[in-house]
Protein backbone atom coordinates (compact mmCIF):
# COMPACT_ATOMS: atom_id res chain seq x y z
CA UNK A 1 0.00 0.00 0.00
CA UNK A 2 2.80 2.42 0.88
CA UNK A 3 4.50 1.66 -2.43
CA UNK A 4 1.22 2.18 -4.21
CA UNK A 5 0.86 5.61 -2.63
CA UNK A 6 4.46 6.50 -3.46
CA UNK A 7 4.00 5.63 -7.09
CA UNK A 8 0.40 6.85 -7.33
CA UNK A 9 1.13 10.17 -9.13
CA UNK A 10 2.54 8.35 -12.14
CA UNK A 11 0.15 5.41 -11.87
CA UNK A 12 -2.84 7.75 -12.06
CA UNK A 13 -1.48 9.09 -15.34
CA UNK A 14 -0.27 5.81 -16.79
CA UNK A 15 -3.08 3.37 -15.97
CA UNK A 16 -5.65 5.05 -18.24
CA UNK A 17 -2.90 5.28 -20.85
CA UNK A 18 -2.15 1.58 -20.66
CA UNK A 19 -5.87 0.82 -20.78
CA UNK A 20 -6.14 3.05 -23.85
CA UNK A 21 -3.37 1.14 -25.60
CA UNK A 22 -5.03 -2.16 -24.74
CA UNK A 23 -8.56 -1.12 -25.67
CA UNK A 24 -8.19 -1.58 -29.46
CA UNK A 25 -6.63 -5.02 -28.92
CA UNK A 26 -9.23 -6.24 -26.46
CA UNK A 27 -12.09 -4.58 -28.30
CA UNK A 28 -11.34 -6.73 -31.33
CA UNK A 29 -12.19 -9.86 -29.38
CA UNK A 30 -15.01 -8.87 -27.09
CA UNK A 31 -17.11 -5.82 -26.52
CA UNK A 32 -17.99 -6.74 -22.99
CA UNK A 33 -14.36 -7.25 -21.96
CA UNK A 34 -13.54 -3.82 -23.37
CA UNK A 35 -16.31 -2.15 -21.36
CA UNK A 36 -15.12 -3.90 -18.23
CA UNK A 37 -11.54 -2.78 -18.90
CA UNK A 38 -12.57 0.85 -19.34
CA UNK A 39 -14.72 1.00 -16.24
CA UNK A 40 -12.38 -0.99 -14.01
CA UNK A 41 -9.34 1.09 -14.94
CA UNK A 42 -11.22 4.32 -14.23
CA UNK A 43 -12.56 3.00 -10.91
CA UNK A 44 -9.04 2.00 -9.89
CA UNK A 45 -7.73 5.43 -10.87
CA UNK A 46 -10.48 7.10 -8.84
CA UNK A 47 -9.52 4.95 -5.86
CA UNK A 48 -5.87 5.97 -6.26
CA UNK A 49 -6.78 9.64 -6.49
CA UNK A 50 -8.72 9.48 -3.24
CA UNK A 51 -5.93 7.60 -1.52
CA UNK A 52 -3.43 10.16 -2.76
CA UNK A 53 -5.66 13.02 -1.59
CA UNK A 54 -5.84 11.51 1.87
CA UNK A 55 -2.10 11.07 1.98
CA UNK A 56 -1.46 14.62 0.84
CA UNK A 57 -3.69 16.02 3.56
CA UNK A 58 -1.61 14.08 6.10
CA UNK A 59 1.93 14.15 4.73
CA UNK A 60 2.00 17.17 2.44
CA UNK A 61 3.16 17.57 -1.13
CA UNK A 62 4.10 14.53 -3.18
CA UNK A 63 7.12 14.74 -5.45
CA UNK A 64 7.88 12.04 -7.99
CA UNK A 65 11.06 12.25 -10.04
CA UNK A 66 10.82 10.09 -13.14
CA UNK A 67 13.78 7.89 -13.93
CA UNK A 68 15.88 8.85 -10.91
CA UNK A 69 17.24 6.34 -8.45
CA UNK A 70 14.64 7.37 -5.89
CA UNK A 71 11.26 9.09 -6.37
CA UNK A 72 12.03 12.02 -4.09
CA UNK A 73 15.54 12.66 -5.43
CA UNK A 74 14.35 15.72 -7.33
CA UNK A 75 17.81 17.17 -7.85
CA UNK A 76 20.79 14.95 -8.75
CA UNK A 77 23.24 14.46 -5.90
CA UNK A 78 25.74 17.27 -5.70
CA UNK A 79 23.91 19.48 -8.17
CA UNK A 80 21.72 22.57 -7.90
CA UNK A 81 19.15 22.33 -10.66
CA UNK A 82 16.41 19.75 -11.31
CA UNK A 83 17.23 17.84 -14.47
CA UNK A 84 14.54 15.20 -14.84
CA UNK A 85 10.80 15.55 -15.25
CA UNK A 86 9.20 15.91 -11.85
CA UNK A 87 5.58 15.25 -11.03
CA UNK A 88 4.40 17.38 -8.17
CA UNK A 89 1.01 16.99 -6.53
CA UNK A 90 -0.21 19.48 -3.96
CA UNK A 91 -3.64 20.35 -2.59
CA UNK A 92 -4.62 22.28 -5.70
CA UNK A 93 -3.59 19.53 -8.13
CA UNK A 94 -5.31 16.81 -6.21
CA UNK A 95 -8.47 18.90 -5.91
CA UNK A 96 -8.70 19.01 -9.69
CA UNK A 97 -7.70 15.36 -9.81
CA UNK A 98 -10.68 14.39 -7.66
CA UNK A 99 -13.05 16.29 -9.94
CA UNK A 100 -11.56 14.73 -13.04
CA UNK A 101 -11.70 11.22 -11.59
CA UNK A 102 -15.39 11.52 -10.70
CA UNK A 103 -16.51 13.13 -13.93
CA UNK A 104 -14.51 10.88 -16.22
CA UNK A 105 -15.86 7.79 -14.50
CA UNK A 106 -19.43 9.09 -14.80
CA UNK A 107 -18.87 10.03 -18.44
CA UNK A 108 -17.42 6.62 -19.31
CA UNK A 109 -20.34 4.79 -17.72
CA UNK A 110 -22.79 7.14 -19.40
CA UNK A 111 -21.13 6.53 -22.78
CA UNK A 112 -21.54 2.77 -22.56
CA UNK A 113 -25.11 2.96 -23.72
CA UNK A 114 -25.19 6.50 -25.09
CA UNK A 115 -23.13 5.53 -28.12
CA UNK A 116 -24.18 1.86 -28.18
CA UNK A 117 -25.77 2.14 -31.61
CA UNK A 118 -22.83 3.84 -33.32
CA UNK A 119 -19.79 2.41 -35.08
CA UNK A 120 -16.23 3.06 -34.00
CA UNK A 121 -16.78 2.35 -30.33
CA UNK A 122 -13.33 0.89 -29.69
CA UNK A 123 -11.70 4.04 -30.92
CA UNK A 124 -14.19 6.17 -29.02
CA UNK A 125 -13.26 4.56 -25.71
CA UNK A 126 -9.55 4.65 -26.59
CA UNK A 127 -9.76 8.39 -27.14
CA UNK A 128 -11.83 8.84 -23.99
CA UNK A 129 -9.13 7.14 -21.94
CA UNK A 130 -6.44 9.19 -23.65
CA UNK A 131 -8.33 12.34 -22.75
CA UNK A 132 -8.41 11.18 -19.12
CA UNK A 133 -4.63 10.70 -19.27
CA UNK A 134 -4.13 14.16 -20.72
CA UNK A 135 -6.23 15.77 -18.01
CA UNK A 136 -4.46 14.02 -15.15
CA UNK A 137 -1.10 14.79 -16.69
CA UNK A 138 -1.88 18.50 -16.87
CA UNK A 139 -2.95 18.52 -13.26
CA UNK A 140 -0.10 16.53 -11.76
CA UNK A 141 2.96 17.58 -13.70
CA UNK A 142 5.53 19.95 -12.29
CA UNK A 143 7.21 20.61 -15.60
CA UNK A 144 6.19 23.25 -18.12
CA UNK A 145 6.97 21.34 -21.30
CA UNK A 146 5.27 18.28 -19.92
CA UNK A 147 2.23 20.46 -19.27
CA UNK A 148 2.27 21.42 -22.94
CA UNK A 149 2.47 17.78 -24.04
CA UNK A 150 -0.46 16.72 -21.88
CA UNK A 151 -2.43 19.77 -22.95
CA UNK A 152 -2.00 18.58 -26.51
CA UNK A 153 -3.06 15.03 -25.66
CA UNK A 154 -6.24 16.27 -24.03
CA UNK A 155 -7.10 18.66 -26.84
CA UNK A 156 -6.38 16.31 -29.75
CA UNK A 157 -8.40 13.53 -28.16
CA UNK A 158 -11.14 16.03 -27.35
CA UNK A 159 -11.27 17.36 -30.90
CA UNK A 160 -11.52 13.90 -32.40
CA UNK A 161 -14.30 13.02 -29.97
CA UNK A 162 -16.24 16.22 -30.68
CA UNK A 163 -16.31 15.18 -34.34
CA UNK A 164 -17.38 11.65 -33.39
CA UNK A 165 -20.76 11.75 -35.15
CA UNK A 166 -19.39 12.10 -38.66
CA UNK A 167 -22.70 12.02 -40.45
CA UNK A 168 -23.50 15.60 -39.40
CA UNK A 169 -21.59 18.55 -40.83
CA UNK A 170 -21.76 20.68 -37.69
CA UNK A 171 -19.84 18.12 -35.63
CA UNK A 172 -16.93 18.32 -38.06
CA UNK A 173 -16.95 22.11 -37.90
CA UNK A 174 -17.10 22.06 -34.12
CA UNK A 175 -14.19 19.66 -33.91
CA UNK A 176 -12.21 21.69 -36.42
CA UNK A 177 -12.73 24.91 -34.50
CA UNK A 178 -11.71 23.23 -31.28
CA UNK A 179 -8.51 21.81 -32.70
CA UNK A 180 -7.57 25.10 -34.39
CA UNK A 181 -8.04 27.03 -31.16
CA UNK A 182 -6.15 24.37 -29.20
CA UNK A 183 -3.30 24.30 -31.68
CA UNK A 184 -2.87 28.07 -31.62
CA UNK A 185 -3.18 28.21 -27.83
CA UNK A 186 -0.69 25.44 -27.25
CA UNK A 187 1.83 26.90 -29.67
CA UNK A 188 1.58 30.19 -27.80
CA UNK A 189 2.22 28.28 -24.60
CA UNK A 190 5.24 26.65 -26.22
CA UNK A 191 6.61 30.03 -27.30
CA UNK A 192 6.24 31.32 -23.75
CA UNK A 193 8.01 28.21 -22.44
CA UNK A 194 10.82 28.98 -24.87
CA UNK A 195 11.10 32.52 -23.52
CA UNK A 196 11.43 31.22 -19.96
CA UNK A 197 13.86 28.49 -20.99
CA UNK A 198 16.05 31.03 -22.79
CA UNK A 199 16.63 32.97 -19.60
CA UNK A 200 16.76 30.39 -16.84
CA UNK A 201 17.64 27.16 -18.68
CA UNK A 202 15.06 25.18 -16.79
CA UNK A 203 11.59 23.84 -17.38
CA UNK A 204 10.68 22.95 -13.82
CA UNK A 205 7.91 25.14 -12.40
CA UNK A 206 9.20 25.10 -8.83
CA UNK A 207 12.78 25.91 -9.80
CA UNK A 208 11.67 28.65 -12.19
CA UNK A 209 9.49 30.14 -9.46
CA UNK A 210 12.55 30.36 -7.27
CA UNK A 211 14.82 32.09 -9.76
CA UNK A 212 12.34 34.18 -11.76
CA UNK A 213 13.22 37.87 -12.09
CA UNK A 214 10.07 39.33 -13.74
CA UNK A 215 12.02 40.83 -16.61
CA UNK A 216 10.29 42.14 -19.74
CA UNK A 217 10.57 38.74 -21.33
CA UNK A 218 8.86 37.18 -18.34
CA UNK A 219 6.03 39.66 -18.69
CA UNK A 220 5.60 38.80 -22.36
CA UNK A 221 5.63 35.12 -21.46
CA UNK A 222 2.99 35.70 -18.77
CA UNK A 223 0.82 37.51 -21.30
CA UNK A 224 1.15 34.64 -23.77
CA UNK A 225 0.33 32.05 -21.11
CA UNK A 226 -2.74 33.93 -19.91
CA UNK A 227 -4.08 34.63 -23.40
CA UNK A 228 -3.59 31.01 -24.42
CA UNK A 229 -5.29 29.52 -21.38
CA UNK A 230 -8.07 32.11 -21.41
CA UNK A 231 -8.67 31.18 -25.04
CA UNK A 232 -8.96 27.52 -24.10
CA UNK A 233 -11.43 28.26 -21.30
CA UNK A 234 -13.60 30.45 -23.51
CA UNK A 235 -13.08 33.79 -21.79
CA UNK A 236 -15.20 36.41 -23.43
CA UNK A 237 -13.45 38.10 -26.30
CA UNK A 238 -12.25 34.65 -27.35
CA UNK A 239 -15.40 32.65 -26.67
CA UNK A 240 -17.00 32.40 -30.12
CA UNK A 241 -15.73 28.89 -30.83
CA UNK A 242 -16.83 27.54 -27.46
CA UNK A 243 -20.55 26.81 -27.98
CA UNK A 244 -19.95 25.58 -31.54
CA UNK A 245 -17.59 22.92 -30.25
CA UNK A 246 -19.34 22.01 -27.02
CA UNK A 247 -22.86 21.73 -28.35
CA UNK A 248 -22.15 19.17 -31.06
CA UNK A 249 -20.08 16.64 -29.12
CA UNK A 250 -21.66 13.49 -27.68
CA UNK A 251 -23.07 14.51 -24.29
CA UNK A 252 -20.59 12.47 -22.27
CA UNK A 253 -17.70 14.19 -24.04
CA UNK A 254 -19.18 17.63 -23.47
CA UNK A 255 -19.22 16.86 -19.77
CA UNK A 256 -15.55 15.96 -19.93
CA UNK A 257 -14.67 18.98 -22.05
CA UNK A 258 -16.00 21.21 -19.29
CA UNK A 259 -13.42 19.70 -16.99
CA UNK A 260 -10.62 20.09 -19.51
CA UNK A 261 -11.40 23.77 -19.60
CA UNK A 262 -11.13 23.69 -15.82
CA UNK A 263 -7.77 22.00 -16.25
CA UNK A 264 -6.65 24.92 -18.41
CA UNK A 265 -7.90 27.21 -15.67
CA UNK A 266 -5.78 25.21 -13.24
CA UNK A 267 -2.77 25.76 -15.47
CA UNK A 268 -3.47 29.50 -15.54
CA UNK A 269 -3.73 29.56 -11.73
CA UNK A 270 -0.56 27.54 -11.38
CA UNK A 271 1.31 29.98 -13.58
CA UNK A 272 -0.07 33.14 -11.95
CA UNK A 273 0.19 32.02 -8.35
CA UNK A 274 3.07 29.57 -8.25
CA UNK A 275 5.36 30.31 -11.16
CA UNK A 276 5.01 34.10 -10.93
CA UNK A 277 3.73 34.05 -7.36
CA UNK A 278 6.62 35.86 -5.74
CA UNK A 279 7.12 38.54 -8.35
CA UNK A 280 3.82 39.18 -10.06
CA UNK A 281 2.28 42.65 -10.11
CA UNK A 282 -0.78 41.19 -8.43
CA UNK A 283 -3.31 44.08 -8.45
CA UNK A 284 -2.92 44.75 -12.18
CA UNK A 285 -3.16 41.12 -13.29
CA UNK A 286 -5.91 40.52 -10.73
CA UNK A 287 -8.00 43.41 -12.06
CA UNK A 288 -7.51 42.29 -15.65
CA UNK A 289 -8.78 38.84 -14.69
CA UNK A 290 -11.71 40.32 -12.75
CA UNK A 291 -12.82 42.58 -15.61
CA UNK A 292 -12.70 39.83 -18.20
CA UNK A 293 -14.34 37.46 -15.74
CA UNK A 294 -17.24 39.88 -15.27
CA UNK A 295 -17.62 40.25 -19.02
CA UNK A 296 -17.57 36.49 -19.37
CA UNK A 297 -20.29 36.07 -16.75
CA UNK A 298 -22.53 38.64 -18.30
CA UNK A 299 -22.08 37.95 -22.01
CA UNK A 300 -22.43 34.23 -21.46
CA UNK A 301 -25.76 34.45 -19.72
CA UNK A 302 -27.24 37.05 -22.05
CA UNK A 303 -26.36 34.96 -25.08
CA UNK A 304 -27.81 31.87 -23.40
CA UNK A 305 -31.25 33.40 -23.01
CA UNK A 306 -31.84 33.42 -26.76
CA UNK A 307 -30.72 29.89 -27.57
CA UNK A 308 -33.12 27.26 -28.79
CA UNK A 309 -30.64 24.41 -29.06
CA UNK A 310 -30.49 22.76 -25.64
CA UNK A 311 -26.76 22.01 -25.79
CA UNK A 312 -25.81 25.47 -27.07
CA UNK A 313 -27.94 26.95 -24.33
CA UNK A 314 -26.02 24.98 -21.71
CA UNK A 315 -22.67 25.80 -23.33
CA UNK A 316 -23.31 29.52 -22.98
CA UNK A 317 -24.19 28.93 -19.36
CA UNK A 318 -20.89 27.10 -18.96
CA UNK A 319 -19.09 30.21 -20.24
CA UNK A 320 -21.02 32.35 -17.80
CA UNK A 321 -20.28 30.07 -14.84
CA UNK A 322 -16.57 30.04 -15.69
CA UNK A 323 -16.72 33.81 -15.19
CA UNK A 324 -17.63 33.33 -11.51
CA UNK A 325 -14.48 31.35 -10.91
CA UNK A 326 -12.28 33.89 -12.65
CA UNK A 327 -13.83 36.66 -10.56
CA UNK A 328 -13.44 34.76 -7.30
CA UNK A 329 -9.83 33.84 -7.87
CA UNK A 330 -9.09 37.19 -9.50
CA UNK A 331 -10.12 39.01 -6.32
CA UNK A 332 -7.79 36.75 -4.38
CA UNK A 333 -4.99 37.57 -6.79
CA UNK A 334 -5.64 41.29 -6.63
CA UNK A 335 -5.06 41.37 -2.86
CA UNK A 336 -2.30 38.75 -2.88
CA UNK A 337 0.39 41.21 -1.82
CA UNK A 338 -1.64 42.48 1.16
CA UNK A 339 -1.75 39.97 4.04
CA UNK A 340 -4.43 41.90 5.96
CA UNK A 341 -6.96 42.06 3.16
CA UNK A 342 -6.06 38.55 2.15
CA UNK A 343 -7.02 37.27 5.58
CA UNK A 344 -10.24 39.34 5.74
CA UNK A 345 -11.72 38.40 2.40
CA UNK A 346 -9.09 37.40 -0.18
CA UNK A 347 -8.80 33.82 0.99
CA UNK A 348 -12.57 33.48 1.18
CA UNK A 349 -12.99 34.85 -2.33
CA UNK A 350 -10.49 32.37 -3.64
CA UNK A 351 -12.08 29.54 -1.71
CA UNK A 352 -15.41 30.58 -3.18
CA UNK A 353 -14.00 30.55 -6.70
CA UNK A 354 -12.42 27.15 -6.18
CA UNK A 355 -15.52 25.76 -4.48
CA UNK A 356 -17.51 26.95 -7.46
CA UNK A 357 -15.21 24.95 -9.72
CA UNK A 358 -16.14 21.80 -7.78
CA UNK A 359 -19.85 22.58 -7.94
CA UNK A 360 -19.75 23.53 -11.57
CA UNK A 361 -17.85 20.36 -12.36
CA UNK A 362 -20.69 18.38 -10.78
CA UNK A 363 -23.82 20.10 -12.05
CA UNK A 364 -22.73 21.21 -15.51
CA UNK A 365 -21.81 17.72 -16.75
CA UNK A 366 -25.05 16.51 -15.13
CA UNK A 367 -27.03 19.06 -17.13
CA UNK A 368 -25.17 18.17 -20.31
CA UNK A 369 -25.89 14.51 -19.65
CA UNK A 370 -29.60 15.21 -19.26
CA UNK A 371 -29.45 17.19 -22.51
CA UNK A 372 -27.85 14.16 -24.11
CA UNK A 373 -30.58 11.97 -22.67
CA UNK A 374 -33.20 14.18 -24.32
CA UNK A 375 -31.29 13.94 -27.59
CA UNK A 376 -30.92 10.18 -27.22
CA UNK A 377 -34.57 9.49 -27.90
CA UNK A 378 -36.00 12.63 -29.45
CA UNK A 379 -33.14 12.94 -31.93
CA UNK A 380 -33.25 16.71 -31.76
CA UNK A 381 -31.53 19.37 -29.73
CA UNK A 382 -34.15 22.00 -30.52
CA UNK A 383 -36.04 23.02 -27.39
CA UNK A 384 -39.05 24.32 -29.31
CA UNK A 385 -39.64 20.87 -30.77
CA UNK A 386 -39.62 19.12 -27.41
CA UNK A 387 -42.40 18.99 -24.89
CA UNK A 388 -44.10 16.85 -22.30
CA UNK A 389 -41.08 14.66 -21.78
CA UNK A 390 -41.55 14.59 -18.01
CA UNK A 391 -44.26 11.99 -18.44
CA UNK A 392 -41.88 9.49 -19.98
CA UNK A 393 -38.48 10.33 -18.54
CA UNK A 394 -38.97 10.54 -14.79
CA UNK A 395 -35.33 10.04 -13.78
CA UNK A 396 -34.06 12.51 -16.32
CA UNK A 397 -36.58 15.09 -15.15
CA UNK A 398 -35.61 14.74 -11.51
CA UNK A 399 -31.91 14.95 -12.31
CA UNK A 400 -32.48 17.98 -14.52
CA UNK A 401 -34.31 19.72 -11.67
CA UNK A 402 -31.42 19.03 -9.30
CA UNK A 403 -28.96 20.46 -11.80
CA UNK A 404 -31.08 23.53 -12.49
CA UNK A 405 -31.60 24.38 -8.85
CA UNK A 406 -27.92 23.94 -8.23
CA UNK A 407 -26.70 26.09 -11.13
CA UNK A 408 -29.06 28.92 -10.23
CA UNK A 409 -27.80 28.99 -6.66
CA UNK A 410 -31.07 28.14 -4.92
CA UNK A 411 -30.53 27.43 -1.22
CA UNK A 412 -29.68 24.95 0.15
CA UNK A 413 -28.08 23.36 -2.90
CA UNK A 414 -24.35 23.37 -3.43
CA UNK A 415 -24.38 26.12 -6.04
CA UNK A 416 -25.71 28.40 -3.35
CA UNK A 417 -22.98 27.69 -0.83
CA UNK A 418 -20.20 28.58 -3.25
CA UNK A 419 -21.96 31.59 -4.68
CA UNK A 420 -22.70 33.02 -1.24
CA UNK A 421 -19.03 32.60 -0.36
CA UNK A 422 -18.06 34.55 -3.49
CA UNK A 423 -20.73 37.23 -2.96
CA UNK A 424 -19.90 37.89 0.69
CA UNK A 425 -16.16 38.18 0.21
CA UNK A 426 -16.26 40.01 -3.10
CA UNK A 427 -18.71 42.55 -1.68
CA UNK A 428 -16.00 43.83 0.62
CA UNK A 429 -13.67 44.18 -2.33
CA UNK A 430 -16.08 45.92 -4.67
CA UNK A 431 -19.90 45.80 -4.38
CA UNK A 432 -20.43 46.09 -8.14
CA UNK A 433 -19.00 42.63 -8.63
CA UNK A 434 -21.52 41.11 -6.24
CA UNK A 435 -24.44 42.93 -7.82
CA UNK A 436 -23.45 41.71 -11.29
CA UNK A 437 -23.11 38.22 -9.91
CA UNK A 438 -26.61 38.26 -8.45
CA UNK A 439 -28.11 39.61 -11.68
CA UNK A 440 -26.38 36.87 -13.66
CA UNK A 441 -27.67 34.31 -11.21
CA UNK A 442 -31.26 35.50 -11.63
CA UNK A 443 -30.96 35.42 -15.42
CA UNK A 444 -29.58 31.88 -15.15
CA UNK A 445 -32.56 30.73 -13.12
CA UNK A 446 -34.99 32.39 -15.51
CA UNK A 447 -33.52 30.84 -18.62
CA UNK A 448 -33.27 27.37 -17.09
CA UNK A 449 -36.88 27.53 -15.94
CA UNK A 450 -37.91 28.46 -19.45
CA UNK A 451 -35.95 25.56 -20.92
CA UNK A 452 -37.43 23.19 -18.35
CA UNK A 453 -40.88 24.32 -19.27
CA UNK A 454 -40.47 23.83 -22.97
CA UNK A 455 -38.75 20.46 -22.77
CA UNK A 456 -40.46 18.65 -19.93
CA UNK A 457 -43.78 20.30 -19.15
CA UNK A 458 -46.96 20.46 -21.16
CA UNK A 459 -48.97 17.77 -22.82
CA UNK A 460 -47.37 14.71 -24.32
CA UNK A 461 -46.50 15.34 -27.92
CA UNK A 462 -47.69 12.67 -30.37
CA UNK A 463 -44.28 12.29 -32.04
CA UNK A 464 -42.70 11.25 -28.73
CA UNK A 465 -45.12 8.43 -27.94
CA UNK A 466 -42.34 5.88 -28.31
CA UNK A 467 -39.96 7.71 -25.99
CA UNK A 468 -39.02 5.77 -22.88
CA UNK A 469 -36.61 6.25 -20.01
CA UNK A 470 -32.97 6.18 -21.06
CA UNK A 471 -30.89 2.99 -20.55
CA UNK A 472 -29.59 2.10 -17.13
CA UNK A 473 -25.93 2.96 -17.63
CA UNK A 474 -26.81 6.50 -18.65
CA UNK A 475 -28.85 6.88 -15.47
CA UNK A 476 -25.98 5.50 -13.39
CA UNK A 477 -23.64 8.03 -14.95
CA UNK A 478 -25.99 10.87 -14.08
CA UNK A 479 -26.72 9.56 -10.60
CA UNK A 480 -23.01 9.52 -9.73
CA UNK A 481 -22.87 13.26 -10.37
CA UNK A 482 -26.18 13.92 -8.63
CA UNK A 483 -24.92 11.99 -5.61
CA UNK A 484 -21.90 14.26 -5.60
CA UNK A 485 -24.18 17.28 -5.61
CA UNK A 486 -26.23 15.90 -2.74
CA UNK A 487 -23.09 15.12 -0.76
CA UNK A 488 -21.71 18.62 -1.21
CA UNK A 489 -25.12 20.06 -0.34
CA UNK A 490 -25.31 18.11 2.90
CA UNK A 491 -21.74 18.68 4.07
CA UNK A 492 -20.49 21.96 2.62
CA UNK A 493 -18.29 22.85 5.58
CA UNK A 494 -16.67 19.42 5.52
CA UNK A 495 -15.81 19.80 1.86
CA UNK A 496 -14.45 23.30 2.42
CA UNK A 497 -12.22 22.16 5.26
CA UNK A 498 -10.98 19.02 3.56
CA UNK A 499 -10.25 20.03 0.01
CA UNK A 500 -11.14 23.66 -0.70
CA UNK A 501 -9.00 25.38 1.90
CA UNK A 502 -5.90 23.26 1.21
CA UNK A 503 -6.31 24.11 -2.47
CA UNK A 504 -6.70 27.84 -1.78
CA UNK A 505 -3.74 27.83 0.60
CA UNK A 506 -1.63 26.05 -2.00
CA UNK A 507 -2.35 28.95 -4.34
CA UNK A 508 -1.76 31.71 -1.80
CA UNK A 509 1.59 30.44 -0.57
CA UNK A 510 3.79 28.87 -3.25
CA UNK A 511 6.55 28.28 -0.69
CA UNK A 512 5.90 24.59 0.04
CA UNK A 513 5.51 23.83 -3.65
CA UNK A 514 8.90 25.36 -4.39
CA UNK A 515 10.80 23.93 -1.45
CA UNK A 516 9.44 20.43 -2.11
CA UNK A 517 11.62 20.39 -5.20
CA UNK A 518 14.47 22.75 -4.50
CA UNK A 519 14.67 22.16 -0.76
CA UNK A 520 17.08 19.32 -1.33
CA UNK A 521 19.83 21.83 -2.12
CA UNK A 522 22.65 21.25 0.41
Amino acid at each position, binding site marked *: MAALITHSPILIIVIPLLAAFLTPLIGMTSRKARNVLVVVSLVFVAFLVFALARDISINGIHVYTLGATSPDLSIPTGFMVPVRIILEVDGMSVFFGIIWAIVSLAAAIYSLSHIASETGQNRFFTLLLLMVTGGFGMMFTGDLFNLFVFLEIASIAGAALIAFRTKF*ADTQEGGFKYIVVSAIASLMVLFAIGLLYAQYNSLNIAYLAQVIQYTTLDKIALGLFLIAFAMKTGMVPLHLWFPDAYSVAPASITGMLVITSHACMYAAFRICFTLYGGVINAPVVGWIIIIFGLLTMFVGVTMAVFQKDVMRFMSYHAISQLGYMWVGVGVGLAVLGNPGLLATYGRDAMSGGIFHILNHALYKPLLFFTGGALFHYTGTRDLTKMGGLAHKMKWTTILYIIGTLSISGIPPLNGFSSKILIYESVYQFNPILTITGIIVSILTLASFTKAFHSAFMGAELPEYKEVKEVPRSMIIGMVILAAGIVFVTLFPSLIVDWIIHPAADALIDPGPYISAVTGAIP
Partner: protein
Amino acid sequence: MMEYIPLDFPFLAAALLVGISFYIIIFKKNLIKLIMGIAMLAAGVNLFLVSLGYRAGGTAPIYTDVPEGPMVMSVPQALTLTSIVINVAVLALMLTMVIRIYRHTGSLDSEKSRRLKG
Protein backbone atom coordinates in the same frame (compact mmCIF):
# COMPACT_ATOMS: atom_id res chain seq x y z
CA MET B 1 35.48 30.95 -32.91
CA MET B 2 33.08 32.76 -35.16
CA GLU B 3 32.77 36.52 -34.87
CA TYR B 4 29.67 37.62 -33.02
CA ILE B 5 26.98 38.95 -35.35
CA PRO B 6 24.98 41.66 -33.59
CA LEU B 7 21.65 40.84 -35.25
CA ASP B 8 20.02 37.70 -33.91
CA PHE B 9 18.85 36.45 -37.25
CA PRO B 10 17.34 33.13 -36.16
CA PHE B 11 15.25 34.71 -33.41
CA LEU B 12 14.05 37.46 -35.73
CA ALA B 13 13.25 34.90 -38.41
CA ALA B 14 11.22 32.93 -35.90
CA ALA B 15 9.32 36.06 -34.84
CA LEU B 16 8.71 36.92 -38.47
CA LEU B 17 7.39 33.44 -39.23
CA VAL B 18 5.05 33.67 -36.27
CA GLY B 19 3.89 37.11 -37.42
CA ILE B 20 3.20 35.94 -40.98
CA SER B 21 1.34 32.91 -39.72
CA PHE B 22 -0.84 35.05 -37.48
CA TYR B 23 -1.61 37.23 -40.50
CA ILE B 24 -2.76 34.11 -42.36
CA ILE B 25 -4.77 32.82 -39.43
CA ILE B 26 -6.58 36.11 -38.86
CA PHE B 27 -7.31 37.13 -42.44
CA LYS B 28 -7.53 34.09 -44.70
CA LYS B 29 -10.90 32.42 -45.19
CA ASN B 30 -9.80 29.23 -46.89
CA LEU B 31 -9.56 26.34 -44.46
CA ILE B 32 -6.50 24.83 -46.15
CA LYS B 33 -4.74 28.19 -45.91
CA LEU B 34 -5.68 28.32 -42.26
CA ILE B 35 -4.03 24.95 -41.75
CA MET B 36 -0.95 26.17 -43.61
CA GLY B 37 -0.88 29.15 -41.27
CA ILE B 38 -0.88 26.87 -38.26
CA ALA B 39 1.87 24.76 -39.80
CA MET B 40 3.92 27.92 -40.26
CA LEU B 41 3.25 28.98 -36.70
CA ALA B 42 4.54 25.61 -35.58
CA ALA B 43 7.59 26.01 -37.80
CA GLY B 44 8.30 29.43 -36.31
CA VAL B 45 8.02 28.18 -32.76
CA ASN B 46 10.22 25.19 -33.55
CA LEU B 47 12.86 27.40 -35.13
CA PHE B 48 12.78 29.60 -32.06
CA LEU B 49 13.15 26.64 -29.70
CA VAL B 50 15.98 24.99 -31.54
CA SER B 51 17.95 28.19 -31.99
CA LEU B 52 17.78 28.83 -28.23
CA GLY B 53 20.13 25.92 -27.68
CA TYR B 54 22.85 26.92 -30.11
CA ARG B 55 26.33 27.65 -28.83
CA ALA B 56 28.79 29.40 -31.11
CA GLY B 57 31.04 26.84 -32.79
CA GLY B 58 29.25 23.94 -31.12
CA THR B 59 28.91 20.44 -32.50
CA ALA B 60 25.92 18.13 -32.39
CA PRO B 61 25.58 16.56 -28.93
CA ILE B 62 26.51 13.04 -30.02
CA TYR B 63 29.72 11.58 -28.69
CA THR B 64 30.31 9.10 -31.53
CA ASP B 65 33.47 10.29 -33.32
CA VAL B 66 32.89 13.92 -32.42
CA PRO B 67 35.65 16.53 -32.76
CA GLU B 68 36.75 18.29 -29.58
CA GLY B 69 34.94 21.50 -28.72
CA PRO B 70 31.72 22.75 -27.16
CA MET B 71 28.48 20.91 -27.78
CA VAL B 72 25.17 22.65 -28.45
CA MET B 73 22.51 22.22 -25.79
CA SER B 74 20.61 18.99 -26.13
CA VAL B 75 17.33 19.69 -24.34
CA PRO B 76 15.99 22.20 -26.91
CA GLN B 77 16.67 19.66 -29.62
CA ALA B 78 14.64 17.05 -27.79
CA LEU B 79 11.85 19.57 -27.20
CA THR B 80 11.81 20.51 -30.86
CA LEU B 81 11.66 16.88 -31.91
CA THR B 82 8.70 16.33 -29.60
CA SER B 83 7.00 19.45 -30.86
CA ILE B 84 7.49 18.44 -34.53
CA VAL B 85 5.85 15.07 -33.96
CA ILE B 86 2.99 16.71 -32.09
CA ASN B 87 2.40 19.09 -34.97
CA VAL B 88 2.38 16.26 -37.49
CA ALA B 89 -0.35 14.65 -35.43
CA VAL B 90 -2.37 17.86 -35.19
CA LEU B 91 -2.06 18.52 -38.92
CA ALA B 92 -3.19 15.00 -39.81
CA LEU B 93 -6.30 15.38 -37.68
CA MET B 94 -7.08 18.86 -39.01
CA LEU B 95 -6.77 17.74 -42.62
CA THR B 96 -9.07 14.82 -41.93
CA MET B 97 -11.69 17.15 -40.53
CA VAL B 98 -11.37 19.47 -43.49
CA ILE B 99 -11.87 16.54 -45.87
CA ARG B 100 -15.04 15.64 -43.95
CA ILE B 101 -16.26 19.25 -44.00
CA TYR B 102 -15.64 19.40 -47.73
CA ARG B 103 -17.63 16.21 -48.24
CA HIS B 104 -20.55 17.68 -46.31
CA THR B 105 -20.67 21.27 -47.52
CA GLY B 106 -18.78 21.21 -50.81
CA SER B 107 -16.82 24.27 -49.81
CA LEU B 108 -13.56 25.17 -48.13
CA ASP B 109 -14.60 28.72 -47.33
CA SER B 110 -14.89 29.24 -43.61
CA GLU B 111 -17.57 31.90 -44.12
CA LYS B 112 -19.75 29.76 -46.34
CA SER B 113 -19.45 26.58 -44.39
CA ARG B 114 -20.35 28.21 -41.12
CA ARG B 115 -23.82 26.93 -40.53
CA LEU B 116 -23.99 27.70 -36.87
CA LYS B 117 -24.67 31.25 -35.92
CA GLY B 118 -24.75 32.70 -32.46
